[in-house]
């Protein structure tokens, strides 16, 4: 563990990523206690201070109805991280199991499962999510559902590739000769060797999930007001550029920082965990 942290620390970029991620996570977790205006994540208006430029009172300015942008960004981080965690908690195990069985079992199981995966992969991810959201009511839950549906095939393919190559290894042969069950070989022998790649990808994916969710909200298909969401905030403020620049720029920067942080951290993890490209 210490050695891993040292390697991470030796690479300035991953260290920076780690720090960013830690800050964001802490901010999201401690949101109710650290936001300057804890109530501003809801249906609150304060027209006296609407559309104010960044000042001592509001470090990132206020939005059109007077809510503090900094506070809303922090709450939006909370929502984004929750969305990311929920999406990944469902899509990763689902995709991994599909990929694991396809990769190890081979034969018709492999063909059927991977063709199914290919079908999902052949649709551009955002298009699929938009299509789903067009049909469903735009709520946070449905947004999570849509993103989950488009996410699992990537893990299926990732795990499939690793499982297929691991199945040729000597330790798998040893387990087969001993007569271990298929379930044991898949989950206790092969899956642990897939974990480094899965964990690395999950970290990188947090950033991507945030972007996809923000894109959906930007198009009005994600979470609805008054819930704060980085994408919606950027969308709302877009038509007031460049005058009330703070309306879009700060949420945009918030997205950037989150994605950047997770990407750098993911790259660092890739190095520690020794994941091949």
């Amino acid at each position, binding site marked *: 563990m210490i050695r891993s942290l*040292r*390697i991470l620390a030796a690479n300035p970029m991953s260290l920076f990523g780690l720090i960013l991620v830690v800050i964001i996570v802490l901010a999201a977790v401690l949101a109710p206690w650290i936001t300057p205006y804890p109530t501003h994540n809801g249906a609150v208006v304060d027209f006296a201070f609407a559309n104010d430029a960044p000042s001592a009172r509001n470090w990132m300015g206020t939005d059109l109805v007077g809510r503090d942008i900094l506070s809303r960004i922090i709450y939006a981080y909370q929502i984004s991280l929750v969305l990311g965690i929920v999406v990944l908690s469902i899509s990763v195990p689902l995709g991994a199991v599909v990929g694991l069985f396809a990769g190890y079992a081979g034969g018709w199981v492999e063909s059927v499962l991977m063709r199914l995966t290919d079908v999902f992969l052949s649709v551009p991810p955002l298009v699929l999510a938009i299509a789903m959201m067009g049909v469903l009511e735009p709520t946070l839950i449905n947004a999570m559902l849509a993103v989950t549906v488009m996410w699992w095939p990537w893990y299926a393919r990732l795990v499939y590739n690793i499982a297929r190559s691991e199945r040729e290894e000597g330790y798998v042969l040893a387990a087969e000769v001993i007569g271990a069950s298929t379930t044991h070989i898949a989950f206790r022998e092969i899956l642990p060797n897939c974990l480094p790649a899965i964990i690395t990808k999950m970290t990188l994916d947090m950033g991507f999930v945030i972007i996809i969710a923000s894109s959906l909200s930007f198009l009005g298909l994600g979470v609805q007001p008054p819930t704060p969401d980085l994408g919606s905030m950027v969308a709302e403020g877009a038509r007031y550029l460049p005058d009330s620049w703070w309306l879009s720029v700060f949420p945009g920067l918030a997205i950037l920082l989150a994605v950047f942080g997770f990407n750098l951290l993911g790259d660092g993890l890739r190095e520690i965990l020794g994941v091949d490209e």
Partner: protein
Amino acid sequence: MSRILDIVDLKLGFKGYAGLTEVLHGMSLHINAGERVALVGESGSGKSVTARIILGLLQETRTARIAGKVSFDGHDISTMSGSQRAALRGTEMSMIFQDPTSALNPVFTIGRQFTEVLRRRVPGMSNETATAKAAQLLADVSIPDPSRVLQSYAFQLSGGMNQRVMIAMALSNRPKLLLADEPGTALDVTVQAQTLTLMRDLVTDHGTSVLLISHNLGVVREFADRIYVVYRGRIVESGPTKSIFGKPGHAYTRALLSAVPRITGAGLPEVPEISDDFLAPMVTHEAVS
């Protein structure tokens, strides 16, 4: 007798998180023109990294710390630039590897790879000239139907065939020094025997010096004129092959020799555990000529 290769007090260390790991502790060896010299040792002895230093490959690694003098054909490699060292590879010195099929590029035909090798010596050689020359070189290594082989890919040919192709390629530009890293280890034993005979004949014809790196004492005995025995980054014994096999002086050499099973059926030897005797000072046998 001129020295094709002269290594004096070569030291190598790798810088890591925990500090400097020393791998070679002052190796000195030389190869005369036309000689076949073997570097014998087990894995981790440092014989492979020595070959990479001679080829100028390890110098590119950031974490490598190399000291000592390496001279090739009278020129000091240690002071050369990366591109100068690169210019020597494939032309003045070349290498053949343990697994011939994987050492050849799988996406290019044999002919294409041959052309690339020949062009290192004669840039801009035409395809026709290169193909003709390659076919001749393949015939020299007793490959029947060279033109078919030139149009094939490595995975379509047998291991033995690929080994011959690799030898032909390595010798195509008439290098002064050939490095052979465990040649034939990946091959069947009958094929390995043929390959070694072929290699010996060719290098004798061309007057090429050879540095053979191997852990297989039988192969070394049949191929090399002189031997350096390496243990943990140090040369522990050196001398003519006959002399070393006849009267091994160093404890490590004796352990190695006694550990090899004999086809005469002398039984399984008692092998000593690693002892401090293995770190005893070097034993040198006088040259016979």
